[in-house]
């Protein structure tokens, strides 16, 4: 038995298994019902609700009555199918929207940074001297040029991290490259894009030495650390220390990131790992953003057979009315399978 169907709602195809040629053939037709006795094909087109339904069954044993039952089933499924379709579309759109929003922001930052070096506003642009101009600019203020490049580097890392997270969260099968990595090397590479921001806040970074290796997917681990350092930069108290130490067992290694940062209330400690939740005081400071960083960090650590925990300290002191505390983030990784 051959069944062909085509269901349309508001000019959008909800479900179909017919060729584009056939679609073109029937789309503009009025309602019809045909029966080719020789071939045993019954066809129907019916307007329904805000769209239309097409059904064709090739089977000499199907009677008109049975065929009508098939039509009734499709009609019964019409609304749920249509709603399902919108739900899926909305979900997809909102995910893409968030991705586009973040990447647009990073891209705009990169563009404006580059426009400091590559000036496009001058009148009578002499293209041949463009390279000379850039060289002169860099020589005149090499400090500024270096920092500009660094800021661009950070934003590109953030773009790549966004795309990586989007892919992982929206794919059924995730490709991970689980390899041994020197944990100190991973930290150095992941913290590097944030150096300038830590410098601006006069943060001294102290990382313990270790030769320990961990088993992880570098890409996702780097994204997790990126989120943690990105948060640290936003919420750490100025003029303080960011300390990274390690604790070991035979099977596992734990990174302990200690800092004085904004206070997280007791009832919020688990909440901050939930999607779109930002801590009360983070919101107060207007720095909360989408509140999705820690949510993804938790998921990505799970993918690596690891974990991330937030150990909240007690309120220590206040700066401009915002309370700060000695907080810790613990990231656990496996050392061997």
């Amino acid at each position: 038995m051959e069944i062909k169907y085509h269901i349309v709602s508001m000019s959008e195809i909800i479900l179909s298994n017919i060729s584009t040629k056939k679609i073109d053939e029937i789309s503009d037709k009025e309602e019809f019902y045909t029966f080719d006795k020789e071939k045993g094909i019954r066809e129907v087109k019916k307007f329904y609700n805000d769209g239309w339904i097409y059904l064709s069954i090739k089977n000499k044993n199907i009677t008109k009555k049975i065929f009508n039952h098939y039509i009734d089933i499709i009609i019964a499924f019409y609304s749920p199918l249509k709603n399902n379709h919108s739900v899926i579309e909305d979900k997809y759109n909102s995910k893409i929207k968030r991705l586009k929003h973040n990447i647009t922001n990073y891209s705009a930052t990169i563009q404006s940074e580059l426009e400091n070096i590559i000036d496009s506003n001058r009148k009578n642009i002499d293209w041949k001297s463009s390279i000379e101009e850039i060289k002169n600019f860099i020589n005149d203020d090499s400090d500024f040029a270096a920092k500009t490049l660094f800021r661009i580097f950070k934003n590109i890392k953030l773009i790549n991290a966004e795309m990586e997270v989007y892919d992982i969260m929206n794919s059924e099968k995730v490709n991970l490259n689980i390899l041994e990595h020197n944990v100190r090397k991973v930290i150095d590479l992941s913290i590097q894009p944030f150096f300038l921001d830590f410098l601006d806040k006069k943060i001294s970074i102290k990382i313990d030495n270790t030769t320990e290796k961990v088993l992880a997917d570098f890409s996702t681990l780097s994204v997790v650390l990126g989120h943690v350092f990105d948060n640290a930069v936003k919420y750490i108290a100025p003029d303080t220390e960011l300390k990274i130490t390690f604790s070991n067992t035979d099977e596992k290694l734990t990174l302990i990131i200690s800092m004085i940062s904004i206070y997280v209330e007791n009832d919020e400690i688990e909440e901050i790992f939930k999607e779109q939740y930002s801590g009360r005081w983070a919101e107060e400071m207007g720095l909360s953003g989408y509140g999705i960083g820690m949510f993804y960090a938790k998921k990505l650590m799970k993918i690596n057979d690891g974990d991330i925990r937030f150990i909240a300290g007690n309120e220590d002191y206040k700066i401009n009315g915002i309370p700060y505390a000695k907080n810790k983030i613990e990231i656990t990784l496996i050392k061997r399978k």
Partner: protein
Amino acid sequence: MCAFIFKRKNFPIRTIDQIKSRCSILFIDDQKFEIVEQLREKDGWSRTSRIKDLDSITQSELKDAHIVCIDIQGIGKKMGMTSGLELIIAIKDKYPEKKVIMYSAENQGKIDAFDEACNIVDFRLRKTATRYEFNRIIEKCALEAFTVENCIKRLKEVLRNDFSQELSESDIEKKLLKLSNKTIDAQNISSVFKITGNVLSILNIIKFFFSL
């Protein structure tokens, strides 16, 4: 009185720097990729090169390569293939021992549609993977193929699974040493390892190991 000291002969150890300088890495990418230059000039992989596409499966650059890194988009056209994925399948079919690393800008979802290639490559990377990741994965491939310990481990497993032979690692090492003075062919493999039948799997591993 003199005491006899039996010196056990071991296979000469290959250092990572030796492996890096002799391991041939071929990139197949229609666009210039800075990572290729960095690997060759800065990271010690002195035999790294790039071609824009492959003319034939027996092309010398491919034949001589130990590790092949392929950007699946925009290649395979010269050989009449619709994508680099088909090329990967052809390469792995002809040269099962060569390490193949696939990289692309495509997101994961789309690639899943081409499961066969994904399952046979040794590693998959994003095009935006860092220089560190490329280095780490290439190093992993090179160590797997060319260190004595790893070669012995692989041979031990294949001998156990395909030939029901249980040999110690030091025994396998002795046989490897023996073979290093002979021509690597099916006959010598069979006689040194005392196995019969199709020895292609063992032959391929050992031939590749000695090709460095």
